[in-house]
C-alpha cells in the first residue's frame, strides 16, 4: 500500500497492484459525510493521437479515421470533416446528398438517445427500462443497416456527398420504424415523468441553472435542459437543415428529469424529421467532385452531435494531406460543467448525474476514488452504481 501526499487529499490505492504503479483514478470525489465537496476527472484513457494521425494521411483516409473518433456518433464526425473539406475546396455537395446526410444524422441521434436512455436507466438500477429501450433501439439499428450495410460506422459520407441512396422500399421501412418508435417513446415519456421511483432519482437532482450552464460552457441537451437555447442545427444550419429545419427544444427546470425530457422530445422531433425528409427527398446527384489536393485555407465546421456542439477546425496547405485538424467534442464541454455541478450533491446521486450528460460511454470499467476525511478508497464504477441504487431503496 502506498500513500502519495497531495495537498488536502489522501490518496491511498487499495487492491492488488504493483506498488510502483498508480491506479489511474478516472473520477475522484472528495466527500464530507454524504456530500461531495470536490470532483475531478482524468480523461485520456481513450486518447489515441488522432489529430496527429490526420496530418500523416490524406483527406480520404482521414474521413475513415474521423468516423471512428466515436462509435456512437460516427456519422456526425465524418459529416463535420467532409463539410469542412468541401468548404476548403470551395464546393457544395448536391441537395440530395445533404438531405441524406441529415437523414442519417437524425437516425443516429435516435439510436444514440435510445442508447443513452437505457444506459442512464441502468445506472439508476432500472434495468427493465434498459432492456426495453435497447430492444426498441434495434428497430433503428435495422434501418441504419438497411440503408448503409452496417449497424455502426455507416460510412455514408464521401468527400463531396454521400455514397448511399434511398429507395422506395427503404422509405417504407423507415416510415414503419418511425411509427413503432414513436408509440414506444410515448410510453418512455410517461415512465420518465410519472413513475415515482424514477422521479425520486431525477426530480430536483443535479440542478444546473441557465446561468451556470452558460458559465460552465455546457452544450447540447445538457444545456438545453437548463433552458439555454443553443442548437447548432438551428443557430447555424448545415447539410440539409436549412431545407428541413428542426425545432429548438428546451426545458426550464435544469434537473435530471429535464435532461431526460429534452432527449425524449428530441426523439419525437427526429421521428418527424425523418418522415419529412424521406417524403420530400430532393432529386439529383449524390456527389460533387472534390480535388485531391485541397487549396490552402482554414475553416471551422460545427455540427450538432447527439451530445451537443461538435467543433472542427481544419487547416489545409495545398497538398493532399491536412496541415491540422482540431476536434473539440461536446463531451469535453460537459465534463467541466458536471464536475462543478457535482459539488454539494450526494455521492449516491453521482452515477445518475454523470450519466445525465450522456458522456462517452467508453470507460465502462472506470475507477472511482472516494476521499472521505483522511481516508481514501478506490471503488469500481459498479460499486458506485450499486451504492446509489441501495441508497434510494
Amino acid at each position, binding site marked *: 500500500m502506498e500513500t502519495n501526499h497531495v495537498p488536502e487529499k489522501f490518496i491511498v490505492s487499495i487492491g492488488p497492484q504493483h506498488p510502483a504503479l498508480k491506479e489511474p483514478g478516472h473520477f475522484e470525489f472528495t466527500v464530507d459525510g454524504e456530500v461531495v465537496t470536490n470532483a475531478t476527472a*482524468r480523461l*485520456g484513457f481513450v486518447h489515441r493521437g488522432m*489529430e496527429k494521425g490526420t496530418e500523416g494521411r490524406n483527406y480520404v483516409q482521414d474521413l475513415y479515421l474521423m468516423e471512428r473518433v466515436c462509435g456512437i456518433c460516427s456519422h456526425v464526425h465524418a459529416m463535420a470533416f467532409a463539410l469542412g473539406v468541401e468548404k476548403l475546396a470551395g464546393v457544395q455537395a448536391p441537395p440530395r446528398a445533404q438531405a441524406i446526410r441529415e437523414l442519417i444524422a437524425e437516425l443516429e441521434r435516435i439510436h444514440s438517445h435510445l442508447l443513452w436512455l437505457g444506459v442512464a436507466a441502468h445506472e439508476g438500477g432500472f434495468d427493465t427500462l434498459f432492456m426495453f429501450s435497447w430492444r426498441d433501439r434495434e428497430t433503428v439499428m435495422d434501418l441504419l443497416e438497411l440503408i448503409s450495410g452496417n449497424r455502426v460506422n455507416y460510412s455514408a459520407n464521401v468527400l463531396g456527398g454521400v455514397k448511399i441512396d434511398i429507395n422506395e422500399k427503404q422509405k417504407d421501412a423507415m416510415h414503419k420504424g418511425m411509427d413503432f418508435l414513436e408509440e414506444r417513446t410515448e410510453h418512455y415519456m410517461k415512465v420518465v415523468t410519472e413513475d415515482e421511483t424514477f422521479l425520486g432519482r431525477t426530480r430536483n437532482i443535479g440542478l444546473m441553472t441557465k446561468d451556470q450552464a452558460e458559465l460552465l*460552457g455546457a452544450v447540447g441537451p445538457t444545456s438545453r435542459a437548463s433552458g439555454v437555447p443553443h442548437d447548432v442545427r438551428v*443557430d447555424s444550419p448545415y447539410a440539409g437543415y436549412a431545407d428541413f429545419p428542426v425545432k429548438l427544444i428546451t426545458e426550464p427546470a435544469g434537473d435530471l428529469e429535464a435532461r431526460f425530457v429534452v432527449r425524449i422530445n428530441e426523439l419525437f422531433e427526429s421521428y418527424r424529421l425523418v418522415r419529412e425528409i424521406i417524403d420530400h427527398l430532393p432529386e439529383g446527384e449524390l456527389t460533387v467532385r472534390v480535388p485531391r489536393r485541397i487549396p490552402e485555407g*482554414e475553416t*471551422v465546421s460545427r455540427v450538432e452531435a447527439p451530445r451537443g456542439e461538435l*467543433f472542427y*477546425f481544419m487547416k489545409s496547405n495545398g497538398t493532399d494531406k491536412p496541415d491540422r485538424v482540431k476536434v473539440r467534442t461536446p463531451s469535453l464541454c460537459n465534463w467541466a*460543467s458536471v464536475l462543478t455541478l457535482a459539488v454539494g450533491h450526494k455521492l449516491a446521486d453521482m452515477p445518475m448525474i454523470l450519466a445525465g450528460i450522456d458522456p462517452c460511454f467508453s470507460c465502462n470499467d472506470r475507477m472511482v476514488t472516494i476521499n472521505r476525511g483522511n481516508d481514501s478508497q478506490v471503488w469500481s464504477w459498479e460499486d458506485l452504481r450499486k451504492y446509489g441504487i441501495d441508497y434510494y431503496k
Partner: protein
Amino acid sequence: MVKKKVLTPEELLQAGKEALQSWILSENTPENNRLDVVIQTAEIKNCVRALVNAKWGYLSAITALDSPEYTLVEGSNDKVIVPDKGNVELLYHFCNGAAIITMRMKLPYANAAIDSICEVIPSATLYEREASELLGVDFIGTPSTEHLLLPDEWPVNVYPLRKSFTGLEKQNKVEEK
C-alpha cells in the same frame, strides 16, 4: 408580443468587433460568418473579458497550431524544420449563432507563454491543459497542469502535436544522440 429580431452573422460579427476594437491589430474575414482578429498576447484576458461582458457568444474551443520555421536542405527541394525557431499559434474561438470570432496570437517557442483565462471562463481549464501538453504552451496562472490526455509517464518537453515529433521511438533515438 414583439418577436426578437434575429441578427445576421455579419451583424453579429460587427457587434463583436466593436467590443474588441481597442485591441485589434489586424483582421480578416475568411468566410462570411467568420472574423479573425490578431491581438497582442498580453491582451488576451482583456479581450476575453470584453466578449464575456458584452455577452457575445461563448468560448467554443481553443486551437493550438504548430508553425515551425523551415529551411531547404542544401542542393535539394526538401524542407527541414529549423529547431527552436518556430511559433505556436493560438486561436480562441467564440461562437454566437452562426458567427465565429477567432482571436489569434503567435507565441515563439522560446517564450510560449500566455495568461490563463480561467479567471474569466473557468471551464477553459480543459482546453488550456490540452494545448499545454500537446503543443507546449505555458498558461500562466492556470489552475491545473495535470495531464488531461497524455499518460503521466509521457516524456517531459516532448510535444506530440509539434511537427518535429514523429513518434516516441524516434524521439528516444534523437535523445540518445
